[in-house]
C-alpha cells in the first residue's frame, strides 16, 4: 500500500514533449484512471511510473521513496499490459508463479499463493494450459492473477480491456472493480474509453497532448468539465458545443437564442449542454431548426439539429418520432448551459447558475 506523487514530471524526446510538467498526488488505495485519446501521454505517464521509460524532468515518489532511477523490479509494482505479456513457454501456473520465483519468495508459500490468485480470477481449471490455448478473456485473467499474486503496493493497468470483445469487457471490468474493492491496492489504470473511466475510477485524470486537462471524480468531470476538450471527450454522446455570442445576457448562435444569462461578460463564447438535459419543446424553445437526423437507440431516441457548423444532439423519450427535415423546437434553459472561453476553451462559471 502506498501513495504515489508525481512532481512536475515531463517526458521529452528530441523535439517532442510527450508529457509536460505533470503533477499528481494519488492517495493510498485509490483507483485512478488516466483517460485521453491516443497519443495524449497517458501510457507514457504510466510507463514512467513503472520505470519502463526514463523521466526527462521532475520526480516520482512511491510511498516515501523517489523512484526516478530505480529499476522496475525495485519499485514494488505489478503491471497488466494491453497485450498481456504472458510467457508463451510457461503454463498458466508457471506464469502466475513467475514473480514469486524471480523475487525469491520462500518456495513453500508459492503453491498456496498461486492457487489463491488463480481462484480470485476464476482460473482454477486452466492452470496446466499454455497461454496459446486460452481465449482472450482467459489470458487477460492470467495477467491479472500474475499481477495480484505478489501483492505489490501499486497496480498499473495499461488498457487491459481493449483487446477483449464488448461483452467480455463489461464482465472483466466488473471483476477488476471487485478485485480493487477486495485488495484495496493503489491502482493506476490507463484507458481511452471514457465509460471504463467513469465506471472504475475514484478519480479521473483527463489528458490531452501531454497536459492534464482536469482531475476529479467521474461526476465532477461529467458535471463540470474544465474546458471544451473534457466536455467534448466525456459522455456518450459528448457534450454539444455551440459557438456564439453573448450580448447583454443573451446568447445567440445560428438557429439558437438563450436568455437569462445576466452577469455573463459580453463577447464570443462556446455554449455547451448535455443531450439528456435538453428536451423537445411543445412550442418555442431556445433552438428552432429542421431535424438533421433521427436515431433510435432503443432506450431513447436521439434528435440532432444543426446550429451553424455544430451539430446538437438531444435525447428524447424512446417513443418520440419525427421526420428528418421537419421543424423542431428544443428547450435549452440557461440552467443546463455550460460556458467556455471561445479562444482558450476554459470553463467560465456563470453567476446565474448554482
Amino acid at each position, binding site marked *: 500500500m502506498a501513495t504515489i506523487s508525481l512532481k512536475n514530471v515531463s517526458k521529452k524526446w528530441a523535439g517532442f514533449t510527450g508529457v509536460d510538467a505533470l503533477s499528481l498526488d494519488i492517495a493510498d488505495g485509490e483507483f485512478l484512471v488516466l483517460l485521453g485519446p491516443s497519443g495524449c501521454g497517458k501510457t507514457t505517464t504510466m510507463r514512467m511510473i513503472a520505470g519502463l521509460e526514463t523521466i526527462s524532468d521532475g520526480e516520482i515518489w512511491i510511498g516515501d521513496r523517489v523512484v526516478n532511477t530505480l529499476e522496475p523490479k525495485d519499485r514494488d509494482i505489478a503491471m497488466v499490459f*494491453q497485450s498481456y505479456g504472458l510467457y508463451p*513457454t510457461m503454463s498458466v501456473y508457471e506464469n502466475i508463479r*513467475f514473480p514469486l520465483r*524471480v523475487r525469491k519468495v520462500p518456495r513453500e508459500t508459492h503453491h498456496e499463493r498461486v492457487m489463491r490468485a488463480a481462484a480470485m480470477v476464476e482460473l482454477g481449471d486452466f492452470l496446466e494450459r499454455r497461454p496459446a490455448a486460452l481465449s482472450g478473456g482467459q489470458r487477460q485473467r492470467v495477467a491479472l492473477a500474475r499481477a495480484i499474486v505478489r501483492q505489490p503496493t501499486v497496480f498499473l493497468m495499461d488498457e487491459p480491456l481493449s483487446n477483449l470483445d464488448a461483452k467480455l469487457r463489461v464482465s472483466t471490468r466488473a471483476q477488476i472493480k471487485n478485485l480493487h474493492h477486495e485488495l484495496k491496492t493503489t491502482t493506476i489504470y490507463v484507458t481511452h474509453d471514457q465509460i471504463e473511466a467513469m465506471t472504475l475510477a475514484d478519480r479521473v485524470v483527463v489528458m490531452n497532448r501531454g497536459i492534464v486537462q482536469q482531475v476529479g471524480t467521474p461526476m465532477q468531470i461529467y458535471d463540470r468539465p474544465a474546458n471544451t476538450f473534457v466536455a467534448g471527450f466525456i459522455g456518450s454522446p459528448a457534450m454539444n458545443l455551440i459557438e456564439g455570442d453573448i450580448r447583454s445576457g443573451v446568447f445567440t448562435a445560428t438557429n439558437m437564442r438563450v436568455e437569462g444569462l445576466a452577469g455573463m461578460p459580453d463577447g464570443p463564447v462556446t455554449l455547451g449542454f448535455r443531450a439528456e438535459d435538453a428536451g423537445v419543446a411543445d412550442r418555442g424553445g431556445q433552438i428552432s431548426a429542421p431535424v438533421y437526423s433521427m436515431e433510435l437507440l432503443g432506450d431513447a431516441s436521439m434528435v440532432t439539429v444543426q446550429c451553424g457548423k455544430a451539430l446538437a444532439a438531444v435525447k428524447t423519450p424512446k417513443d418520440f418520432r419525427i421526420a428528418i427535415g421537419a421543424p423542431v423546437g428544443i428547450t435549452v434553459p440557461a440552467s443546463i448551459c455550460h460556458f467556455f472561453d471561445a479562444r482558450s476553451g476554459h470553463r467560465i462559471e456563470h453567476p446565474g447558475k448554482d
Partner: protein
Amino acid sequence: MSVLTAKTSPWMRGAAIGFITLWLLMAAFPFVWTLWGSFKVQGDFFSRQDWLNALYGVQTLAETGSSFTGRGYYGAWVEREFWRSVINTGIVTGFVVVISLTFGTLGGYALSRSTARYAFWILIAALIFRAMPHITLLSGYLLPFFQLGVWGYLSTAIIVLVAINQPFTIWMLNSFFQTIPKDLDESAMVDGCSRFQAFRLVIIPVMWPGVITTGLFSFLLAYNDFAVTAVLLSQENQTMVPKIASFMGSTQVQGNVMFAVSAVVSATVPLFILVLFFQRHIVSGLTAGAVKG
C-alpha cells in the same frame, strides 16, 4: 501443396510427381555415386576404360579380391591421420558455434531492443562485412599473424571465423528477437527480473528455434570453411576440408585421390545426421522469423 490439392487433373499430378522424383534423383546422384565409389580403388572410380567399372568394381576385385574395399578409408584415417583433422574440425566448429551464439544472442537482443539510431547503422555495417569475400580479409591477416607468432594455431582460426561469422549471427538473431514483442521483456522486468534475467528466463526460451537455426548456420560456416582454415592453419592443425584438399593435391601417388573421396564421405555423414536431427527446429525457426510479426 495447395496447388496439388486443388482439383488438378491426374496428368498434372503425375507430371508433378515425376518431375520431383527426377529432381530428387539428380540431386542425390553425386552423393550416392561418391558413397558407392569410396569403397572402390582409384582404377575403378576414375576408370579410363569404362565408367561402368566404377559400378562393378573390376579393378577393385582384381586388386583386393573383393568388389568393395575399405582401403581409401584406411589410408585416409590411419595412414594420413585424418582423425586428427576430425578432432580439429570438432574443436573449431564447437568453439565457433558457442562463441558466435553467445555474442550473437546478447548483441542481437541489445540491438533489437535499442531505440538508438546507431543500432541500424551497426546492422548495416554487419551486413557489408558479411558480404565481403572471406579471402579479402585473409590477405591482410597473414603478415601480422606471422609476425605475432599466432599463425597456425586453432585458436587463431577460431577467432577469425567468429569474426567473419558474427555479423551474420547478430543480424539473424536480431531479426528473430524483433519478432518477440517488447511487452514480454517489460512484464518480466516489472515481475522482478533484471534486464539480463528477463533475457535469460523469458526471451531465450521463446527464442530456441531461432538460436538453433542460427547455430546450425554458424556450424556449417565453420565446418565447410576452406579459405580461412587452409591459409591460417599449419599442417598438423588442419581441419577436414583443407586436409581433403591436400589429398587431392597429391594425385601423383596412386590411391591418394581415393583418400580424398573417402574423407569426403566421412565429412558429409555428420552433416546429414545433424540436419535430420534438427530438421524440425530449422523449419520452425525459419518460418517463425518470417511469419510472426
